[in-house]
């Protein structure tokens, strides 16, 4: 279920709230925990000039500059995850064994251009 309630009405590049509910996808009978988790996603503008809190790469700074000079020719840089964290899932496998599995890069903590 994607319900985003941006905390500050800003269209700058930042994490947006996305809660993944395992029961929504009908997995509640084999996933023991968690019942869901906050995955989030990145969305927003990377306008010129790029400010420090937009976690931008040098190339993104260059690209926003070119975009500001030639908006039709060169798009703005993308807003992407730059810091992610893992989650752990406890579940039953097909042989009724209990499995604890760690997955990397499942939660967007920070976004950047």
């Amino acid at each position: 279920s994607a319900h985003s309630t941006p905390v500050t009405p800003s269209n700058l590049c930042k994490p947006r709230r996305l809660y993944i509910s395992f029961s929504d996808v009908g997995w509640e009978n084999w996933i023991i925990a968690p019942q869901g988790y906050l995955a989030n996603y990145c969305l927003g503008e990377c306008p010129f000039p790029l400010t420090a809190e937009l976690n931008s790469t040098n190339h993104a700074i260059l690209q926003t500059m070119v975009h500001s000079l030639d908006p039709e020719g060169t798009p703005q840089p993308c807003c992407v995850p730059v810091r992610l964290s893992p989650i752990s899932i406890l579940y039953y496998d097909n042989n009724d064994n209990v499995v604890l599995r760690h997955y990397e890069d499942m939660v967007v903590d920070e976004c950047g251009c």
Partner: protein
Amino acid sequence: LSLQESLLLKSLGLSTKPNPKSPVPVPSVLWRIFQKRKMLPSTDKDLVDACRVEEFNVPGNIIRVFTDQGHFIHDGQPQRLLCLQKRLYFNLSVLEEGERLTMAQLEIKFSHNSYHTSSQGQVFELRLYQTSQMSLRGMPSHEHGRKLLVEQSFAQLHKSLLFNLSGVAKDWRTYSRNLGLILEISVSGGDGASAPEHGGLQSLCTSIDSFLDTSLLVVTLSQKQCKASRMRR
């Protein structure tokens, strides 16, 4: 399955959607590890290496606890000082090909750690054999066809005894020959002590009756999930 669901399962490293039939309680060791990671402050979460199990200090991102599918062995003739003889079998076939086994730990659980007055101070001997041959009747062919892995004595019943079986579990996978293990617990014979009468032996074995069950905790590393993200990072 819808396409989306099967793709999502695949991204989680699962080929099919599990369909548990008789779910068992969650082993406390897994629950503790899960809770510990869940309670980490979000600022620390990305510092945790999802491809290492720090609790056991081994590489790995999948921890499974296999329940024992073996059976007790009663082969008729009373054996000298033997309280318990059990076949242990853990079905590791669920491990996917791309998973590298990094640790296997056997846990033998007793239901309590109190001490039965009747066997106060009684010393027991525990032997663990790897079965390499199966006799026709499905019974372990006694001396040959099995390799002694562990032999130790213990005088007090702890809640559980732990044994590192990483080497054996890797053998099972490498040679695809998993014929299980044989567990024997007997009253320590001491030097040349003669076997007590059957009733005597029975009373000495009473505390072994608190034997509850055995399970095998296995840690594996999914080469696909762990190596790929490392390269990207």
